[in-house]
């Protein structure tokens, strides 16, 4: 089983798969990450204020604009509402963080890709657009960190990283070391987040608010709705643990459990001011990416 999964993963031509998705998407999807391409630059404020974001100018407040950006000091002085306009740091760094645990190799019977493959293709597409906007990008898999690559014109370097990857561990929550050094960053975390929810919440709470975190919750439908109807032996892909159970009996409770897990996770992420994106691997990648715009 492992062998077959690994085989599928290894033979997958990521470049080709990414190109396929690129044809069906546009750079606008980056707006979902609260960053802008050159075309839209300056038209949308950053949701986060902090180091690395420079003040540009004031503009009179118009109805519908975010009241958070009103300069109240200026209001005190001038009794007029002004909105601070910031200039985004065109060199905003993006860190892609991948959960490379064995559970990410799970591929539902209805899915074209495993969760990891799905994540890589999504990351590849985003990388392409971000490189076009000349953002420095870094990948981190477990303990391996690529370093920020700013002068690369194409994503082949990153694709290579997928291909030489070792599947072994889950998210390296110690990645903060890599983000503390050089100012504000956008961190994109790809994982199924199948870990103890308390642990996850704890970790999320400790994430620095300075950075913008996007949690790409990659999950297969069959992990939410059990497909099996007869008594089945389930083998944990990570620990090798086994359980024999009757899915027809437990599927409702199971679904509730998983949904509660997702709900708590989502709540923890949003409460911390971060972004939650649920990517169902059964859906088409381009559709999932386009959904970023609605998030």
């Amino acid at each position, binding site marked *: 089983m492992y062998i077959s999964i690994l085989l599928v993963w290894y033979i997958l031509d990521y470049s080709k798969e990414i190109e396929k998705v690129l044809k069906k998407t546009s750079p606008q999807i980056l707006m979902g990450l609260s960053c802008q391409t050159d075309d839209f630059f300056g038209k949308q404020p950053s949701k986060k204020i902090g180091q690395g974001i420079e003040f540009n100018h004031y503009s009179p407040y118009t109805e519908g604009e975010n009241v958070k950006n009103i300069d109240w000091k200026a209001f005190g002085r001038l009794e007029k509402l002004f909105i601070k306009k910031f200039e985004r740091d065109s060199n905003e760094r993006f860190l892609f963080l991948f959960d490379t645990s064995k559970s990410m190799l799970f591929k539902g019977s209805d899915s074209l890709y495993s969760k990891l493959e799905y994540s890589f293709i999504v990351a590849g597409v985003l990388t392409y657009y971000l490189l076009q906007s000349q953002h420095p990008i870094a990948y981190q898999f477990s303990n391996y960190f690529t370093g920020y690559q700013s002068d690369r014109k194409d994503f082949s370097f990153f694709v290579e990283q997928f291909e030489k990857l070792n599947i072994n561990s889950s998210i390296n929550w110690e990645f903060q070391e890599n983000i503390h050094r050089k100012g504000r960053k956008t961190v994109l975390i790809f994982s199924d987040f199948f870990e103890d929810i308390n642990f996850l919440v704890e970790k999320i709470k400790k994430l620095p608010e300075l950075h913008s975190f996007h949690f790409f919750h990659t999950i297969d439908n069959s992990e939410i709705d059990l497909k099996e109807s007869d008594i089945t032996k389930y083998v944990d892909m990570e620990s090798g643990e086994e359980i024999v159970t*009757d899915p027809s*009996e437990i599927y409702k409770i199971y679904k509730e*459990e998983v949904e509660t897990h997702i709900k708590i996770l989502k709540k923890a992420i949003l409460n911390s001011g971060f972004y939650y994106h649920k990517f169902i691997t059964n859906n088409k990648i381009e559709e999932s990416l386009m959904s970023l715009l609605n998030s």
Partner: protein
Amino acid sequence: MFKFEHPYFLFFLLSAFILVILHLIRKKKIKIVYFSTIYFLKKSHKKISRKLKIKQFLLFLFRLIILVALIFLVSKTFLVKSGDIISSGDSEQSSYIILDNRYTMLRKNGLTTDFEVAKEKIVKFFQNSSNKNYFFFKDELHLITSKEQLDNFLEKIEIQYPPYLGNYHSFSKNISKYPKMSGIFITNIISERVPENIKVHFIEHKKTENAYIMNINIKQIDSHIYQLESDINSEGVAFKTTISLLKDGKKIANKMINITPKEKQRVIFSFKGDSGQYKIQLGNDDLLEDNSMLFSIDKTSPLKIVIINGGMNPIPYLDESFYLVNAIESSPYKHHWDIIVKNEIESDISKNYDLFIFLDSNFSNIDKKELENIVYLKKPIVLSVGNSTNIDEFNDFWSPYLKWRNIKDESTKNSFKYISMISSEHQIVQKIPFIKSELIEYPIFRYLNFTTEQDLTPILSMNDGTPLFVEKTVNDSKWLIFSSTLSRSWGDLPLSTHFAPLIQESILYLFSDKLTKREPYFYSYSEIHKFFPDKILKPDWYQLPNSKVGAYNTQYIYSQFLGRDSKIEKSTENSQFLEGEEKIYLKNWLILLLFLVLFLEHILDFKRYFKN
């Protein structure tokens, strides 16, 4: 207690046992799924693990019950309700009893017979029943209102021939007059389908030592020696018994035989005997009635033939009677023919003998009156001309009776003659094979010329057409006359291979009607029954067409026709075949259980179907 009509299906219970063993020891071959994490599965499973275990156990139990119920269903399981009461079916409905009174009911049942046991059962049935009940007797139903009435009927019913049930056809026809009533037929043998509305109360015997004599064949070997061949059949169990031959009630021969079921056994008795009543009897078996056959050897005295030889020669080969006696003695009928040779016509000779053969007319003493008696009492005569000293003597002696004259004595010394022309139409000649081709060889040297006579029927003629052996009817007496003598100086006829058959067939021809009665004669059973109407000599097993005899193992018959005719099976399903017990078939209950368990199994597994 459960009982089964087809217990061999219970072997399939082994499969249920294997299922249990497998369930206990073997790991189930279940689907393996590699899952991202079993964290949530474990958590969910923990919550309902107890419920799951119970469900699994119940499912296993239900499936086991389904299997066992199916096996019980095909094994035709029934419950035995002990007691002696015969169920009359619907308690609200009146019913009638039919008692089998065929001879099979005489089978031993302990110290009594099945017939008596059946009668006791009927009494109990009427005692325990509060409904209107009838008794089927002589093609009609009779309402039984009191015990006295019942006793009266039961007393009237005896084992008899033919049984009051008649044959099966008339029995079912009579019964069909009461289609709405339920009947109970008490019997110990069933070989035909009974009407639907009749339950059969079967008096069953598991082991039956029964044998019966199928047929007998008696041959007479010598004058007083007989050989009896008898075929013994059996359908019961193997056992040893004796077979005896009795004459007028006294045992004259006895043999021990091993009876092998379903195997015809031939017993041969050779015995010296004379006329009288004989009986062949099988020893002890389970039938109360003697298992015997009667036969009789005829008392009629043999046909008496007298040869009257007028001119005897002490040298045998020169004596005509020598050839004749030898020819007659070689007959297969010799035991029925007493031959005596005389040389004169004695007084009372006409009364004492049935057939007269005259060889020579040169009698030393002639009782003319006796001769007339012979002729006028229409006794048959074979006449050889004999070596009469002269033709005139012959003419003088026989002319008054034969009514012919001027027969000339002719010699063939100058013109050689031989037998050539055969009258093929005559009955005597027709029965002798190859006579046409072989008699031609024998020359005739001297003969009396009968050619002038017209009222003759030639049997053998010579090559020029001159009659040699003729038939003549005189005063309604049949005369067979040779124109030549049996003396060697007259011709070679006695040396012919066909001479003896010619003489034997001639006697048979003259006595054709009487001879048949003189063959060994054995009465048929119906005749014996006619002769001895008070005593039934052979039980009649053949009341129902195609039925086996009562000596058959009834279980064997039953299984045989069950397999043969599904219609019969249908009828027997509703029938009861127990001795003193009532069968309660669990078919409907088992089907109900099966459906119930299947339903429960589906309910339990409902979620799975729903999920799918």
